[in-house]
């Protein structure tokens, strides 16, 4: 059965809530009383449960199978995390509640902050960024603040071509010019070219490590040294921190700022596109500029919230607030639960298994799919292939859609941009060998068909809730909301 839109039903009189009759009072709405219907359909609880349950079944999810989206880190989301985040002591407290009544919440923030700093070998952490890109913004604002404080007006940020789109977008969003750094043939940042470009106009570099080709930047420390030497700062995109957590500390590589996607490395759920959470660890040089608010442990063991009021004395260099309230508390409880569950030995095993799984995929496919950096050393947590060798007219997209028919979510397509028809596969550590073997078998079958030019593949997917969807048509004349002729009157 197809599930229609809530707007396509005659449901403007229904409601799924029972509310008492409001007492009669003389209203004080100042003449602003609503005088037209809003146009919101209502469903009773049985209908709503059915509507959303049916919708949910049109989705693929980690709970259903491997979700090998490179750079997205779709790992298992532990259910204990969900349970802890829903404890009323965490879920039902107000962000402006008196600080004495939320000491447990501040302790969670402080404890998570402590482990993030420890795991990264950095100096401090800004907890309030709301997602990875927001964390990037935080890091770049800290860099700009540091330069401002030094009276420098450097205006350029260097970014490798293989960077996530958020890197250049963020740099631009806070007023920087963006220039690309070239890569070496083996898929890494070209140290010589980078060094050559450094100069008094360069505020810093944004580097992803492990990078989006799935490779560790061997020269990271040298890059950092060169950038520092030239008066710049090093921002590290931490989206791939899950490959090295417990084995490598970015602080040891000279990084000045790095965001940590709690929804990647630390297993908080992606939820169909968020919420994320992007705390930013900072070096000693950048720590003074960290945003408000933050949590400070006091001598008596209690916690204090440093906000605008006391920032003047406690934290005079702060570049200010970058969101209302304190960040993604619900994600903090989940991430802390995850860190404590895994512990030091577990987190190290996490990155080892993530890297092992990726290399297993790489070496189980590189005879059939072109691995452009297959000779550049082991991959880290993700394996990269190109579309070279496919039959005329067959593309990465065909392979992706073919995988859907085999029961798998496709890999990341066409990213990074530096590889033609890129396919970026990140299995994560929470996949079993049996699941990987099944996936490898399916991908080999589909890749074989694409190499052989099996025309049927171009019609894939055939067994999904929808056949191939026309994205061009959608963009040509965008329909972004439901429109109906006349809204019915709201019923009483």
């Amino acid at each position: 059965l197809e599930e229609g839109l809530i707007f396509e039903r005659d449901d403007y009189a229904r409601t799924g809530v029972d509310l008492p009759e409001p007492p009669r009072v003389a209203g004080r709405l100042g003449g602003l009383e609503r005088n037209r219907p809003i146009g919101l359909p209502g469903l009773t609880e049985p209908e709503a449960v059915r509507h959303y349950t049916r919708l949910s079944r049109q989705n693929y999810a980690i709970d259903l199978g491997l979700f090998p989206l490179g750079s997205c880190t779709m790992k298992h989301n532990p259910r204990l995390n969900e349970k802890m985040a829903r404890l009323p002591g965490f879920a039902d407290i107000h962000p402006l509640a008196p600080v004495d009544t939320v000491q447990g919440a501040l302790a969670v923030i402080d404890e998570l902050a402590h482990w993030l700093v420890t795991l990264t070998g950095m100096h401090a952490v800004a907890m309030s960024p709301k997602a990875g890109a927001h964390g990037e913004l935080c890091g770049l604002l800290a860099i700009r603040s540091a330069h401002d404080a030094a009276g420098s007006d450097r205006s350029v940020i260097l970014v490798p071509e293989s960077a996530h789109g958020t890197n250049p977008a963020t740099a631009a969003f806070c007023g920087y010019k963006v220039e690309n750094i070239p890569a070496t043939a083996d898929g890494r940042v070209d140290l010589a070219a980078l060094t050559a470009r450094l100069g008094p106009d360069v505020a810093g570099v944004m580097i992803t490590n492990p990078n989006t080709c799935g490779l560790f930047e061997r020269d990271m420390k040298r890059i950092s040294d060169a950038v520092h030497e030239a008066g710049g700062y090093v921002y590290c995109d931490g989206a791939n921190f899950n490959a090295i957590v417990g084995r490598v500390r970015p602080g040891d590589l000279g990084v000045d700022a790095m965001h940590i996607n709690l929804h990647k490395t630390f297993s908080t759920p992606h939820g169909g596109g968020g919420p994320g959470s992007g705390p930013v660890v900072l070096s000693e040089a950048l720590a003074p500029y960290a945003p408000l608010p933050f949590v400070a442990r006091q001598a008596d063991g209690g916690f204090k919230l440093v906000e605008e009021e006391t920032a003047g004395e406690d934290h005079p260099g702060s570049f200010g607030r970058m969101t209302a309230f304190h960040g993604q508390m619900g994600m903090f409880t989940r991430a802390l639960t995850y860190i404590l569950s895994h512990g030091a030995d577990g987190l190290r095993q996490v990155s080892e298994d993530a890297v092992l799984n990726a290399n297993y995929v790489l070496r189980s496919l590189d005879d059939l799919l072109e691995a452009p950096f297959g000779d550049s050393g082991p991959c880290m947590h993700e394996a990269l292939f190109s579309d070279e060798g496919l039959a005329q007219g067959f593309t990465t997209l065909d392979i992706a859609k073919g995988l859907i028919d085999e029961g798998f979510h496709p890999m990341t397509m066409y990213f990074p941009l530096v590889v033609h028809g890129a396919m970026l596969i990140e299995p994560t550590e929470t996949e079993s060998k049996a699941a990987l073997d099944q996936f490898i078998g399916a991908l080999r079958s589909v890749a074989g068909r694409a190499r052989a030019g099996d025309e049927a593949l171009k019609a894939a997917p055939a067994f999904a809730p929808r056949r191939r969807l026309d994205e061009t048509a959608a963009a040509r004349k965008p329909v972004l909301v439901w429109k109906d002729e006349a809204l019915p009157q709201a019923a009483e």
Partner: protein
Amino acid sequence: MRYLPLTDADRSAMLARIGAASIDDLFVDVPEAARLAGPIAGLPAHASELAVERHMSRLARRNLSAGEAPFFLGCGAYRHHVPASVDHLIQRGEFLTSYTPYQPEIAQGTLQALFEFQTQVARLFGCDVANASMYDGSTACWEAITMARRVTKRDKAILSAGLHPHYVSLAKTMARFTGDRLDAAIPDLTPGAPGDDMARLLAAIDGETSCVVVQNPNILGHVADLSELAARCHEKGALLVAVVTEPVALGAIRSPGEMGADIVVGEGQSIGVGLNFGGPYVGLFACAEKHVRQMPGRLAGVTADADGQRGFVLTLSTREQHIRREKATSNICTNAGLCALAFSVHLTLLGETGLRRLAELNHAGAVAAAERLAQVPGVELVNGAFFNEFTLKLPREARPVVRSLADKGILGGVSLGRLYPGEAALAGGLVVAVTETASAEDVETLAQALEAEIAA
């Protein structure tokens, strides 16, 4: 370990296939000096669910949760009863553990839900279109200011004194780096004052103004008619950006879109999401259709599949960072999908009928509470018009009063002293929010405790 399916036997077999002698061989590209020899220092080893649950529960118990106390906090985050089915539905693995719908053929659940969300938000705000969510209200507000800059090609934004001070603070942070000019002010606590700075705003709009940003209901709880402001903005070629931090209000009052706002942003937390100590929340973003290509964030749209069946996809991604990179309308990538779903499910359960009833209940409760609290000797009600939140002017500084009430187990409101530290004129202000979760006894408890505090 419970989340790691590989056995040692698996690991050996896999290393053999790879042709590596040990796991360390896979980390050869990490310079020797950067390799950690052993486990992270100080972090204990892995722990059982029971042990972790004990630790986290101990921390949770150190908080006074809203359900344990008479509760009147608002100022941008509101406590409403969320039906149990909302949380049940958003926890379905197919929603919880799916990704941004990049492969639409197997993500129709998320996409259709987002399309419904967009339509609900657009209708609630009285706008043509809405996006698939932002991080929260405060970041959505800044995004609206930058969008107005792109649309008008001007860089001066006038912020109402009634705009949430955190939102102002964020805008100031960003403007310092982007070069936008901001004209801001602090609210007026004089009882009987119009409650907003409409006159100041009307006067300030000029040919360099990109937008006026006004919150309704505002930080003090005032509600105001924005129509004249909208007209003046349009006359001067500026946009009116309206901010809604309590969308339940729109069940009772006219939407900003109906009053002429060009961009309406808001905090969606109060519908479906819960307090969560400030996050995750969900930013709402709606605007006129003509500006859609300047809009930030993701958009779900309608299309058809190869068989001609209707389906949904992410669309207009040429505005977005993963395509446009440094030329994108925003750097936002991950948004607040699951919170948007919670918002949408709750609003679907409410429907027109339920939302209106809920709004009526909130207003009736707030009016009764305001009248009761204004009877406390020395206390004055600042607001003329309000929805479910109003401001009291106390005869003494409100911050210590709030703390003292908390010691008695009463979460009595937000002091303006906390939001505007150092503004002596506002120190007596106490903002009180009254939703359907506050009972008449709760109000009476607060009134008596407040009386005792003020008399003390």
